[in-house]
C-alpha cells in the first residue's frame, strides 16, 4: 500500500518559534509537494520538489523554506512562525507521467496552530 507519512498530526507552537514539518513517502516518487489548506481558500501550493536537492516556489512561499536531502523525505520549515501560518499543511508525492503531473498521493495532514 502506498503511503505518505507526515510526522505530526497536530502541533501547537508559539510566535517566533522555528517549526519543522516532515514528510516521508515510500513510493520512490520523483515529485513531492507542500500545500496549505484554509477554509474558503482551498489548497495552495507552498513549494514543490522534482528531484533531490531541487525545489521550486509555489504560489505562497513567503515565510517558508524546504529541504529535500533524500528522495523519500521532504521537509517544510517555518523559520519564525507567525499566527497567520496557522493552517492545515498537506504533503503529497507523485510520479510524473508523459506530459502530466500524475496522481497526487497525500498524507493525512499536519494541523499547526501558532499562538
Amino acid at each position, binding site marked *: 500500500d502506498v503511503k505518505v507519512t507526515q510526522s505530526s498530526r497536530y502541533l501547537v507552537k508559539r510566535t517566533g518559534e522555528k517549526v519543522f514539518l516532515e514528510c516521508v513517502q515510500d513510493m520512490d516518487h520523483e515529485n513531492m509537494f507542500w500545500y496549505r489548506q484554509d477554509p474558503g481558500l*482551498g489548497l495552495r*501550493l507552498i513549494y514543490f520538489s522534482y528531484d533531490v536537492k531541487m525545489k521550486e516556489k*509555489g504560489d505562497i512561499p513567503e515565510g517558508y523554506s524546504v529541504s529535500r536531502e533524500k528522495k523519500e523525505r521532504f521537509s517544510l520549515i517555518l523559520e519564525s512562525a507567525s499566527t497567520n501560518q496557522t493552517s492545515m499543511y498537506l504533503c503529497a508525492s507523485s510520479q510524473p507521467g508523459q506530459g502530466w*503531473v500524475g496522481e*497526487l498521493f497525500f498524507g*493525512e*495532514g499536519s494541523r499547526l496552530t501558532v499562538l
Partner: protein
Amino acid sequence: TQLLEQSPQFLSIQEGENLTVYCNSSSVFSSLQWYRQEPGEGPVLLVTVVTGGEVKKLKRLTFQFGDARKDSSLHITAAQPGDTGLYLCAARLSGYALNFGKGTSLLVTP
C-alpha cells in the same frame, strides 16, 4: 485570481438525491483531476480526464470533461451518506504542480 472555479461551494442534500458540481476555468487543460477529501484525511484521487468530451463513470459518480477542455462536472446519482466530503478539482497549468479549486463541500444526510 482563482484558476479553477468550483460551484456550488456548499451542498446539503438528503440521501437518494442527485447532484452535480462544476469546475470551470478560462484556461485550457491537457488533463483534469477530481479528488475527494474526507474529514481528517488528505485528498484521494477519484478520476483523471484527459480528452475533450470524455465521460467517465465510477459506480454512481459520472465525470465529464468539457469539449473545449476548460471545464468539468461531477454528477452523483442517488447520493449516500458515505459520499459526504470535500470534492476538489485540480489541473496543471504549467510545470510540475497541480492547481486546485476551492472545493465543494457535500453533506448527505440519511
